[in-house]
């Protein structure tokens, strides 16, 4: 199979943009990505998005965004896999090129969350869970993750303060990222004293609600060099799903879809976890950051908080984790997040990420929908 490359990226800052809708946010990111390829035409648009239907009353998103981003009357459609929509969109765009159907595809991600109060946004987000047996009872996404956090802390005997190292590092990293939503540092004490959302998850354990859009341009080996001087190879890509009803899973402290998708991506890229220089992993909540590090093979079960407290995974270490600040502090514009992560890793490998820079040739991006229900993992190479 011939290789597929990332030849252009574009991001908006993540935040609460009351003055911008889906179309304005996406047009901004798409324009930046197109600029990187000299405004050449793209042949198709795949958009990752979760809640345009529930929060913006907008379906048929592909057509709307292709039109408003000035992409012409090209094939365009939305891919939805909850918070993992971005990763799933990249997976789809990659497949369209791998199939030989197209040579240049734009993969976008956009989310507009700030249209309604939190209780309504939380309800829309909670639709990532099993509607008939989880959402039925009114459990929020934070609530589901809190069940896992308590189990993690109890099983591995990890204290509140030990868990707090994740948000502390993420906020530190995000403070240097111009695209990040939460550009301020926090202390362990502040994390422990922030309000409880769903015990034991506190506000500072949670990714914020924000709007944002990201765009990538994927190209076949045939045209990649014509469009970019610094194409980044998608060397491995894997995707897997798991039981949506979380209680049905045999092991609640491992996300099997992460393990399987990473295995697929590593095998395809012919690498091992130790080869990775920079990783953007999914950390919508503190506990997910730790579990993902363990499932991706970067760390042993239950030991990540301690290792991170000792300085592992901080800038300068290999791998450096979430130099963007992660979902926790860069922000989590849901369906766009997976596209942000891939774009950020591509920028790291190109050497032009505008925040904390990581030296290296191999990067990983991991996008999750639901509580590890749909996971896409990518390995990128310079």
């Amino acid at each position, binding site marked *: 199979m011939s290789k597929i490359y990332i030849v252009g990226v574009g991001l908006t800052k993540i935040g609460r943009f009351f003055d911008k809708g889906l179309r304005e946010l996406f047009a901004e990111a798409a324009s930046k990505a197109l600029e990187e390829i000299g405004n050449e035409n793209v042949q198709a648009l795949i958009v990752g998005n979760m809640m345009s239907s529930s929060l913006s009353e907008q379906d048929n998103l592909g057509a709307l965004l292709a039109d408003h981003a000035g992409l012409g009357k090209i094939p365009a459609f939305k891919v939805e896999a909850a918070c993992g929509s971005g990763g799933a969109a990249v997976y789809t765009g990659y497949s369209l090129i791998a199939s030989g159907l197209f040579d240049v595809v734009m993969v976008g991600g956009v989310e507009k969350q700030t249209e309604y109060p939190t209780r309504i946004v939380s309800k829309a987000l909670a639709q990532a869970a099993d509607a008939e047996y989880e959402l039925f*009872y009114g459990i929020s996404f934070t609530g589901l993750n*809190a069940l896992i*956090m308590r189990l993690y802390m109890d099983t591995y005997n990890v204290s509140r303060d030990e868990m707090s190292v994740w948000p502390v590092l993420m906020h530190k990293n995000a403070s240097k990222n111009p695209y990040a939503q939460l550009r301020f540092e926090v202390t362990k004490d502040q994390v422990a004293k922030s309000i409880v959302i*769903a*015990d034991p998850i506190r506000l500072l354990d949670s990714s914020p609600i924000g709007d944002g859009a990201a765009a990538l341009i994927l190209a076949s080996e045939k045209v990649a060099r014509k469009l970019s001087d610094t194409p980044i190879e998608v060397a491995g890509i894997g995707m897997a799903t798991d039981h949506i*009803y979380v209680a*049905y899973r045999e092991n609640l402290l491992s996300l099997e879809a992460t393990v399987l998708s990473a295995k697929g991506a590593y095998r395809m890229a012919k690498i091992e976890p130790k080869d990775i220089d920079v990783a953007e992993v999914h950390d919508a909540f503190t506990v997910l950051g730790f579990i993902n590090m363990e499932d991706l093979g970067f760390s042993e079960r239950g030991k990540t908080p301690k290792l991170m407290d000792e300085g592992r995974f901080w800038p300068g270490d290999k791998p450096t984790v979430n130099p963007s600040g992660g979902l926790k502090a860069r922000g989590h514009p849901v369906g766009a997040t997976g596209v942000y992560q891939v774009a950020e890793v591509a920028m790291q490998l190109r050497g032009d990420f505008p925040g904390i820079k990581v030296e290296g040739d191999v990067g990983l991006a991991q996008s999750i929908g639901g509580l590890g229900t749909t996971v896409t993992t990518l390995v990128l190479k310079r």
Partner: protein
Amino acid sequence: MKISVPRVWRELKSHYLLEASVCTKCGKIHYPPRTICDNCKNHKLIRRKLSGEGEVLTYTVQYVVLEGYREHAPIIFAIVKLKEGVNVLAPLTDVKPENVRVGLKVTAVLRKITEDGDLGLIKYGIKFKPMKEFRNEGNVAYESEKRTRKNS
């Protein structure tokens, strides 16, 4: 109308009675019920009511609630391991957050989950409450009244 009528009706037995599906070939119990066994791909499944008795495996106290749930806040959610070895997610009721712990023995009861405003359907389903071991003998009312009166 925010609560779908056909859906509430369709799911009655699994929500009121904790009805699970059981594989006729490998015997695996699935909750929520399935149409195909995920263990052996068998399509012939039968329905069986679960005991509703088990213990808390993990729990959370959710303060930030979804639209329609403010009056129930904080809601304690738990994954309960039933006697049959099946895990079920449901709220806990009739218990204070500080009295919940992993390993707490609980039993399923029918409760109101939420309602669709003042006009729509009321959604009923199971919640778990702490199991009580009662063993008191003797006259009921007479002593109780004396104590209650003293207390008032």
